[in-house]
């Protein structure tokens, strides 16, 4: 691979997260390096989605430290994480159902739009220009994801596979440093999976975006990720390059135990 993997950009140390009596995550440490594709795998309920929610501030762990670009962050709200360049997609698609594809992706530009409410209400020159400038950028994303034909369609009317793509588009519109993808290929057919893989690799390749990916399809994970973390019952049971992880007895046991 030609790309250059950089320094640690995100460092999670001894993260523990509980919901009442449920231990979702127990003492988990791992890091993410700039420009890499980092996969998180593990059986259902292992705590993968919770991990992403910790990274972008939806959940706040009871113990542990998170360093983002060398700085410790505390009590971060999701919109602050977004402002720092962390974007994500959702396991259960969380698009804005009543809005068109175009508007959904435009919301991803929100953080970069500066004109105030009054200027927007008046559609005043700078507000209008800003709108058009970001529209042009969003159109590039629409082209990239090959969804030109549905740009004006309300997302609620789209089939599942396309909704997943729009979800990715909305996250990409933020031009994130780190992109968190929660099972982007779940429920897709082979062709759709191939398309999605191609998009993810292209994003990683062309824009240098760091990617943290949760995925169940082991073939896909082994193919596209640089390093893999394995979770089981909220504990980390493996961490390394795909080949290492695949041959680790503990990982094999967890997966066989879970019926995979």
């Amino acid at each position, binding site marked *: 691979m030609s790309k250059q993997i950089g320094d640690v950009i995100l460092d999670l140390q001894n993260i523990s997260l509980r919901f009442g009596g449920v231990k979702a995550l127990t003492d988990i440490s791992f890091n993410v390096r700039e420009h890499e594709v980092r996969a998180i795998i593990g059986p259902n309920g292992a705590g993968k989605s919770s991990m992403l929610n910790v990274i*972008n501030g*939806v959940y706040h762990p009871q113990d542990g430290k998170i360093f983002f670009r060398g700085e410790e962050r505390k009590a971060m*709200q*999701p*919109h602050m*994480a*977004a*402002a720092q360049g962390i*974007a*994500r997609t*959702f396991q259960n698609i*969380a*698009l*804005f*159902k*009543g*809005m068109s594809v175009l*508007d959904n992706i*435009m*919301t*991803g*530009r*929100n*953080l970069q*739009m500066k*004109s105030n*409410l009054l200027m*927007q*209400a*008046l*559609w005043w020159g700078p*507000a*209008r220009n800003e*709108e*058009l400038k970001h*529209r*042009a950028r969003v*159109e590039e994303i629409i082209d990239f994801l090959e969804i030109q034909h549905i740009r004006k369609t309300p997302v609620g009317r789209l089939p599942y596979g396309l909704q997943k793509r729009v979800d990715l588009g*909305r*996250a990409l519109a*933020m031009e994130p440093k780190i992109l968190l993808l929660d099972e982007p290929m779940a429920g897709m057919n082979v062709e759709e999976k191939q398309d999605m893989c191609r998009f993810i690799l292209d994003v990683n390749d062309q824009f240098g975006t760091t990617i943290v990916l949760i995925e169940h399809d082991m073939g896909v994970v082994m193919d596209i990720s640089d390093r893999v973390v394995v979770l089981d019952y909220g504990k980390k049971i493996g961490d390394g390059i795909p080949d290492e992880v695949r041959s680790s007895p503990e990982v094999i046991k967890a997966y066989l135990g879970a019926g995979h």
Partner: protein
Amino acid sequence: MIYRENGQFKTSYGADQQIFPIAQDRWAVLAIIAFAFIGVPLLADEYMFRAILIPFLILSLAALGVNLLVGYCGQITLGAGAFMAIGAYAAYNFLIRIDGMPLLGALILGGLTSAAMGILFGIPSLRVRGLYLAVATLAAQFFWDWAFLRIKWFTNDSSSGSVSVSNLDFFGWTIDAPAEKYLFCLGMLVVFGLLAKNMTRASIGRQWMAIRDMDVAAEVIGIRPMWAKLSAFAVSSFFVGVAGAMWGFVHLGSWEPAAFSVDRSFQLLFMVIIGGLGSIVGSFFGAAFIVILPIFLNQMLPALGGLFGVSISTAAVSHAELIIFGVLIVFFLIVEPHGLARLWATSKEKLRLWPFPH
């Protein structure tokens, strides 16, 4: 060839983001506005202005405000009437207490006061939603009902709480005759309609809708829920407050707190539900419907009864009105939450493809 957009290709995003991207729509709307400004004043009589057109225009403005909050931002309110009252009484106080305060200044300051109160009473929306928020806004309604009745300063010490405004002067134009009042209200509605449309097609409108549709995801892409919700409360209350001030100043002339009771709040909510949640034009449909229906029933039901030899009392008519509203609300909430506006859009869609639906 009544409704064709062949050959209208957009060559820039600017052209594509116009308010009415289809040329026929643009012309139709311009024609309607021109007719409203020129044709209607020539055709309508005093009764039409007073009983139908002026109330329709002002309530359209209020419904538009409610729709921004309820339809676009997904927050419920049962207190819109109170914000009309705040707008009306605040504008009244600015007008009588500040020498030389112009009419427009008073209306806008009334709206701004209402917006500030909207922010205050919108704060519960940061913690609660649905039923609890409805109850909180209802509490605002009762609080202000009480305040305007009991706190005499608000009503300039008038004993009944009744106040009046005369000599409406709009930059030298004395708004007096019903046709003039109509034109003033129409002008205001056009301006505010444009502002609303601009907001809903810009970043702020998308933030509101994002919060409405999926608040967790909205926050994750960087929308601050507090800003989105409170700005919706502020803008909505501003619109409603200006409408309230116009209701008092222009439509009623003199009024008491009962003019803005909880009935008004429900009426405005019904307008946006029937007209179409999350639709600007829906607000107008809803207002038209609710203003015209009672008048229509008043004329029609007795006539209909006459045909069958039964006499129908006024009480029966107003009961019929309530029943019809009830049925329609249930119908729209269950079958077509996007209201008359969606029915209209669907028929237009069909017309665009007609006669080849595939």
